[in-house]
């Protein structure tokens, strides 16, 4: 639904994207206007939007490697220009893979592919016990202060957030040690996988893919472009959090059964979308 009074967000759709509907729904719910933008539309039309989300899925069937084909589409060239101009841009899961493959992230030298999201490997006591696609709930710890990105305004440094992952290639790596060093120095790590106390333990079940230093999400030096492997749109309502979850969110979730008026209470992922709304001065209805 196009509402000219609301900031317009494009949700990019490639052949094989499969999270565009729920991503657009999340944006609409926080008071933004979302439009699913199909890959074969003229890329210049993309400039009309004020923010972008590249959603999850299997663009181009993950041929060659996840995200690499979509990254070379004309749409992404336009997106890179717009993002370079400062527009908020978020890649979720396959969207994160695409943004890394374009060189938008970590963006130390924009346009150069500096990192990759490699095949998962899950370890227990440093032994690889499993590979391949992994779906489940994990905890994230926010590593930045609220103003660092347009997607973290509702968050605080150190805040723990349950969320779901579902991917086969989510391990942040780089061949270049200087890039890895810059991630910390330049405050580019936005989220890390952690346990329910906020400790970034190695291996399963805390780190679901063997990611370097438990990295789950990063931003560019300017902070406007963000990539996140887990799916905030699937943790949008409190009711979606598993009732077994430990910690503050688990306790809230257990109380839901006795409080049906909490049915639409926001879940942990709501904060990312509401942050974007706040960035545009839009007040989200929940929370």
């Amino acid at each position, binding site marked *: 639904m196009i509402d000219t009074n609301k900031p317009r967000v494009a949700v990019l759709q490639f052949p094989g994207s499969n999270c565009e509907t729920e991503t657009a729904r999340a944006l609409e719910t926080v008071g933004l206007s979302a439009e699913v933008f199909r890959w074969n539309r003229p890329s210049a039309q993309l400039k009309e939007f004020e923010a972008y989300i590249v959603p999850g899925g299997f663009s181009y069937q993950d041929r060659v490697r996840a995200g690499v084909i979509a990254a070379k589409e004309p749409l992404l060239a336009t997106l890179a220009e717009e993002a370079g101009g400062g527009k908020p841009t978020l890649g979720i899961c396959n969207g994160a893979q695409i943004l890394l493959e374009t060189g938008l992230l970590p963006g130390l030298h924009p346009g150069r592919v500096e990192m990759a999201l490699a095949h998962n490997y899950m370890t227990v006591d440093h032994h690889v016990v499993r590979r391949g696609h992994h779906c489940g709930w994990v905890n994230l710890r926010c590593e930045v202060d609220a103003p660092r990105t347009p997607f973290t305004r509702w968050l605080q440094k150190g805040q723990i957030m349950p969320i779901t992952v579902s991917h086969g290639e989510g391990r942040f790596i780089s061949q270049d040690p200087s890039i890895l060093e810059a991630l910390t120095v330049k405050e580019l790590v936005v989220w890390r996988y952690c346990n329910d106390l906020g400790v970034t333990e190695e291996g399963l079940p805390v780190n679901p893919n063997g990611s370097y230093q438990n990295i789950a999400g990063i931003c560019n030096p300017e902070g406007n472009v963000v990539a996140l492997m887990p799916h905030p749109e699937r943790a949008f309502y409190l009711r979606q959090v*598993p009732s077994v979850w430990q910690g503050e969110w688990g306790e809230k979730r257990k109380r839901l059964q006795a409080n049906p008026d909490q049915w639409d209470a926001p879940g942990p992922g709501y904060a990312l979308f509401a942050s974007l709304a706040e960035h545009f001065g839009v007040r989200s209805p929940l929370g």
Partner: protein
Amino acid sequence: MSQLFTDDLFHNKGALAAALKQNGLALTPDEAIKIKERIGRVPTMAELFVFDIEWSEHCSYKSSKHLLKKYLPVTGRYVIQGPEEDAGIVEFTHKDGHRYGIVFAHESHNHPSQVLPVEGAATGIGGIVRDVDCMGAMVIGVADPLRFGDPNGRYPDRTKAIIEGVVDGIQQYGNALGVPNLGGDVIFHEGYDDNCLVNVVAIGILREDEIIHSRVPEGGVGYDLILVGKPTDRSGFGGASFASGTLDQEDEEENKGAVQIPDPFLKNILLHHKATEQVRKLAKERGIPIGMKDLGAGGIACCSSEIGSSAGYGVEIHLEQVHVAEPHLPPEVILCAETQERYLLAVPKDFTPEVLKIYNEDWDLPSICFGAGAHVIGTVLEEPVMRVYSNQEVVVELPIEFVVEGIRYEREAREPKVHFTEPSLPQPTDLSEVLLTILRDPNTANKEWIYRHYDTEVQGNTMIRAGEADASLILPLDGCRTGMALSVDGNPYYGEISPFWGGATAVAESFRNVAAIGATPRAMTDCLNYGNPEVPEHFWALEEGIKGLSEAARRLSHPNCEEPIPFVSGNVSLYNHSSTGTSIPPSPIIACVGVIEDASKAITMEIKATDSLLVLVGNRYNELGGSDYYRAIRAGKGANIPIVRYEEERGIIYGTIRVIDRGLALAAHDISAGGLLLSAVEMVLAQHKDAPLGMQLNLSQIPSDLREDTLLFTESSGMLLECRTDHLEAVRAIYREFGLDVYTVGHTTADRNLTVLNKEQQILLHFPVETLRTAWRGSFGLSLAS
């Protein structure tokens, strides 16, 4: 018309049989002769292939259809669409003045998965998703009931390769498709060593006034028939016949050719919410009635004849207009190949250009998959005939009713002379080791190593998922609290002792599982997996199984309404036997859809608070036949399998639903395989691994003469609830209305231990939860994953 089969051949059955086999036809000489007599001439090769498929067990249900008709209840107040189309539809809820339906169907891909596990399992999902999608539904979930051979048995390497391949096929296809996996179950039994079972359920949702029927609409004479999707190739040619025969290892290479090739990437775009939705939306806006059907078994032949005949019309097909993947395909291949990811639409001629544009330009099918697209391949005729041209030559000219009416066989049923006996063994001195053995068994051990590969969360509507409760729960309608629950069940260890109770217990367990989260059973879909119908003992098992399903569906009806819980769709998979003639255990598999009006009341199975009570519902009987316990102590199969005591079972099911609706339970878990003790242990292990709670069970609280091992492990139906102390009397009162007593068999504790007290209130079992968790992790899963 050219004829490779001569008239003379039909007078020599031996030569005819040889010619049929040589051409890859599974028709019997008698069937071929019947065709010739009916049409009054020698059939063409293409015609023989059409009947080869239409008369296969897979398509015609020639051995089972009369049994299904005779026994299974298929109607009821909630049924919107019974089992006559691609998928059944049952009422879900009302919202904004519209009635919404749940569309669901069940399919088997057993033979393909045995020979090519990855492709077999993937195309199984592909096929069933198309069945649901083509009704006009948004596909909102899939579930896979899986049955594998013994991973530590006769063929460990092959069995493990099949398991790995099947799981891989399911995750590759299902995840890419963007449809959440809502669970399923996995059971290992040596009887599946030569024939794995890969069943698959798909679920969709639609608004009742948006149903698209699998037939040409009324007044549709002259409509175009548009084939959409992948270019037709040789894949799956003969698939329906292959699925209706004995798996023979020497034919393995040939059989592989009968398995289709999946493309979830293309399918994702064809699915409801993308290209096809645009077509449907436009048709609706303009008030244009259209018909749509998926291409499954029998390809263009089956689909076009059914879409036409079910409206009383005929069809004309031009094979040269079909988009193909390679040149020079014989007409019978284009007509009958089972290439995946294809649909047939029936639309008015003046609407055709817009439909073609949506698929070929807007959604750019030709760029997405080489050779894919949408093309007009034929027309709807007034005359009830199926006429197929190949380059101006007529290759099929048949009365359309004759094509689709199928064939019937009355098979002989004979009860096998097998005698099962109960072992007589003393109670083992160390029940601790028995419990650990059961927990480590692949049938009981944690299945995370399988289901963590599946995307359970895509679409963002999942509320309860695999491992958290007895059924999964999703919220398929935006802004609506009504939840849909799903459980799949069927225990082959019961079926092999009594096919009847194997069927009845599958229904009862699926109802209990749905009830355990607070949802009410609404409808079922069944997949009946059995051996060779031509063997009287195998056929007897099939009939007994269907009787069991039927009786349970009728007698476990809702207390406010004496109507059976209906079967709105289903599937029959026969010939699941090896070349040595051994059948799989009789395996009826039930998927039950439940509805919970206010999903905020739904509960899960893990214990949640300290010092709450554990309440047992359902009497314990001496029913250890086919149990986990007998297998753990190597006592053989036994004889006394659990039966369904209908009135007691109704109380367990509908009493539990009421208890949960009133907010009187914190957790619930049904009692089935592994008995009371395993249910209790699972309620502890379902917690987060860092959770602080434990449990104490006290057998002295159960008034019973049964031995302690029987009490703990008997698989008699029941429910175990966690309730607050101050809710006990209210819970008791509800079950009493159903004539049931409840027993407080224990309580939760603040230590991380599980303790069981015997009848004298002495410690019988005592474990740190961590010890149980380690055993439950099993050894098989990790070794397979690494």
